[in-house]
């Protein structure tokens, strides 16, 4: 047992092993995904038909708020950190993460943060009910008392993310195997390196904005209250200075995963590796100068409006380059369509559709009609669900045989894919229609002309939810046993992770590998 894990619960509590911590992050994020998903189902059940049936508006607002917060901070971000923990050391030929104790700490504070956030549901006055964007003064002067707990849990999540990001940067910059130059790193490592910088840049801004809220609520300041000389719009500027890079934090690692999977199943090297790196860096840079496109209706001067419109439109260029590169990688490949590839292809198609609606939203005068409608809800679910969630799912199917040593059930994987694919489109595509037809977002009840498409969307949501149960079942079965995977798992995939045994031994690359 000298080099193996300790038995029992203390293995998980005290572990400094990147694989253990990666697994814990992934299981935690899946639990949060189910919790946030259940909240989404409450929302969709209430919106199944006009009128108030299941919940009252107060609780409805708590559901939309908590669904957003839990999915963003509890499901998507920790899942990517989990994948980073598992894969980055194995991809760069390092024995572990650079800062293993901090790694343990950054995971273990998360369950406490989310337990606290979830506990607000049971407090007097209920959970936060001001939307995941928590605009002041609705989130300060007019907020329920539980807001203070919300602020504290955001602080803990932020600390966890910053520590995770520091760890990833330290690992990538210091622990690459000899010969693994920066421009030889797999794209997943590249995208995560850039994401980690984004995290370090913007999580303190989020911490700042919630601290300003805390001061306004408890210590008599007026940052966001006009009555005291403050400015409610200041909140939005600070929030979105965090919030826009945040949405790229949730998509850049996805680009990395898809860039690993498509070449493997097209049996052809990734097209335009260096342009992919530059495109990722450009997107990250642009993400800092487009934040106010979330605020086109706050009444900015026209010069500001134009600047943010042009800058936002520019993002289409590097994003387009990425999509073209993926399509060209597939072109004249020799493709097979195993579950990871299905999810990756769905990613490219549906993320591109989300990109198109994003381009439409960038056009400021048209955005006056789209802003705060279901069109926006459709847009960001099209980039987040097939974007972040599908890529994470694809990554799990792709690397699960390496992690467990067993092959997952391919038929069940395909069933999962098709249920999720159909469910997602049935849920979110009609939202474009009701949004354009004039349905505002975040309303618990709606006018009759929106009824038909809402009903369809609700049916799709439950289908999408059911698909995740297939996923859980498949993963658990694979962890328990199944057909043994080879060391390479797939047909001649690229990367150091495929040079170690399956399942990957508890410690890999204790001596650095040779990199060609």
């Amino acid at each position, binding site marked *: 047992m000298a080099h193996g894990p300790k038995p029992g619960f203390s293995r998980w509590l005290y572990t400094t092993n990147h694989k253990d911590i990666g697994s814990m992050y992934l299981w935690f994020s899946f639990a949060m995904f189910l919790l946030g998903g259940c909240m989404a189902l409450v929302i969709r059940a209430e919106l199944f038909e006009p009128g108030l049936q299941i919940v009252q508006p*107060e609780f409805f*607002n708590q559901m939309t708020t908590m669904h957003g917060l839990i999915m963003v901070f509890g499901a998507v971000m920790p899942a990517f950190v989990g994948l980073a923990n598992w894969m980055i050391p194995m991809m760069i030929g390092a024995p572990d993460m650079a800062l293993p104790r901090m790694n343990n700490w950054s995971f273990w504070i998360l369950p406490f943060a989310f337990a606290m956030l979830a506990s607000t549901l049971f407090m007097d006055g209920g959970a936060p*009910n001001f939307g995941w964007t928590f605009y002041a003064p609705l989130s300060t002067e007019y907020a329920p008392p539980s807001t203070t707990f919300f602020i504290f849990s955001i602080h803990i999540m932020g600390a966890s993310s910053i520590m995770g990001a520091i760890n990833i940067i330290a690992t990538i910059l210091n622990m690459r195997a000899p010969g693994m130059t920066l421009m030889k790193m797999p794209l997943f490592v590249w995208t995560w390196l850039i994401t980690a910088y984004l995290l370090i840049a913007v999580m303190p801004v989020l911490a700042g904005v919630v601290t300003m809220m805390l001061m306004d609520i408890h210590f008599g300041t007026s940052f966001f209250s006009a009555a005291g000389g403050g400015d409610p719009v200041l909140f939005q500027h600070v929030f979105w200075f965090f919030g826009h890079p945040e949405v790229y934090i949730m998509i850049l690692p996805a680009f990395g995963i898809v860039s690993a999977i498509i070449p493997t199943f097209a049996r052809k090297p990734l097209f335009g590796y260096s342009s992919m790196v530059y495109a990722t860096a450009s997107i990250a840079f642009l993400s800092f100068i487009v934040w106010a496109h979330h605020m086109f209706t706050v009444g900015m001067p*026209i010069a500001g409006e*134009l600047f943010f419109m042009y800058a936002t439109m520019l993002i289409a260029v590097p994003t387009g380059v990425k999509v073209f590169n993926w399509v060209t990688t597939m072109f*004249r490949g*020799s493709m097979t*369509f195993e579950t990871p590839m299905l999810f990756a292809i769905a990613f490219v198609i549906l993320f591109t559709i989300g990109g198109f609606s994003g381009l439409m939203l960038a056009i400021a005068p048209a955005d006056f009609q789209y802003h705060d409608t279901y069109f926006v809800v459709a847009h960001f679910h099209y980039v987040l669900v097939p974007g972040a969630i599908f890529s994470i799912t694809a990554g799990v199917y792709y690397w699960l045989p390496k992690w467990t040593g067993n092959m997952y059930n391919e038929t069940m994987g395909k069933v999962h894919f098709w249920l999720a694919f159909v469910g997602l489109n049935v849920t979110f595509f009609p939202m474009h229609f009701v949004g354009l037809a004039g349905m*505002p977002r975040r309303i618990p009840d709606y006018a009759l002309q929106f*009824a038909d498409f809402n009903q369809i969307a609700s049916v799709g949501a439950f289908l999408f939810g059911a698909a995740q149960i297939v996923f859980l079942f498949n993963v658990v079965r694979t962890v328990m046993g199944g057909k043994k995977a080879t060391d390479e798992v797939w047909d001649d995939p690229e990367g150091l992770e495929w040079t170690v045994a399956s399942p990957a031994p508890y410690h890999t690359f204790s001596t650095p590998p040779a990199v060609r």
Partner: protein
Amino acid sequence: MLKGFDRLFALLATSLPAYSAFAEVEGAERWGVNMTQGVTEVSRTTYDLHMLIFWICVAIGVVVFGVMFYSMWRHRKSKGYRAAQFHESTAVELVWTIIPTLILVLMAIPATKTLYDIYDTGEADLDIMVTGYQWKWKYDYLGTDVSFFSNLSTPRSQVDNQLPKGENYLLEVDEPVVVPVGKKIRFLFTANDVIHAWWVPDLAVKKDAIPGFINDAWTRIDEPGIYRGQCAELCGKDHGFMPIVVKAVPEQEYDAWLNERAAQAAKMRELTEKTFDFDELFAMGEKVYNRNCAACHQPNGQGVPGTFPAIAGSQVATGPLDKHLNMVVNGSSKNPAMQAFGPQLSEVDIAAVITYQRNAFGNEMGDTVQPVDILNFKNKQ
């Protein structure tokens, strides 16, 4: 087994009345999939811009997805296709960087023009101040005495599925904002509590109403009609229940309406001098209560435990009159959800609602408050 199905059908049948309520909506309005063209020049330009960008996206999509599906069809291992090994080309990368940039420039030109047009709020024929409240809109016709609140008029029983839903469910108000056609109308937006957003799709006007700040926007409506919209910024519990109704009428009709409203305002000032008896005040008070108070304190006066205090048996409503007056006129200093109704309601309405609250829900104070008492209270401050 059959019995189980029967029961299921019976259950479905009983839920049908609520369900069929919206089956009666006009066919043309249902299944709407696109933005309205609206009734102003700006709304039509916005629509054209939206469609232009949409078709450009469709064209790009057809090319990209076309190549992708062709490739997925032809370049499969199962068809014995052997993979090529090419993996970079600077020329190709340059092409698909430069062409999209040019397309973006083409999009930006009409977008910029439209934006300048939308921002040109100068030289308006009339100004209307729009103030967002939780959860209603107030309209002040600047330069006149006309000022009123506009509340949702859909009855609560429709929301709770006790009555069939009407044609304009959740999009109807007690007092629409009346405007003349063919005139340049400038709206000035602000809010009393949290941020709201005033949105009428047919006018292509959406602007945030922000407490402490004033935004503006303009419109010129071509044809008379009723145009409906909603609050577009999450503003708390009843965000989904504060619609906007704009009634555009010919100019003469508008002038007549404005004069009539100004006369009503003058009459209201007279009423403040009048003494009402208890029954009159109680009856008026019930209406004022249901319109302004019931959303939080509930129609039965029981409030929502932990969030909104009850009126029934409350210390304020059954305590000294001065405290009660102060609470209604100035709002609560501890809980911002309890607004200052002094500036929102007339003296008559405040007198009536206080009388009502002190004598309804089992509160048996037996006292009446007259409009002039409210006026005196306000003047003392």
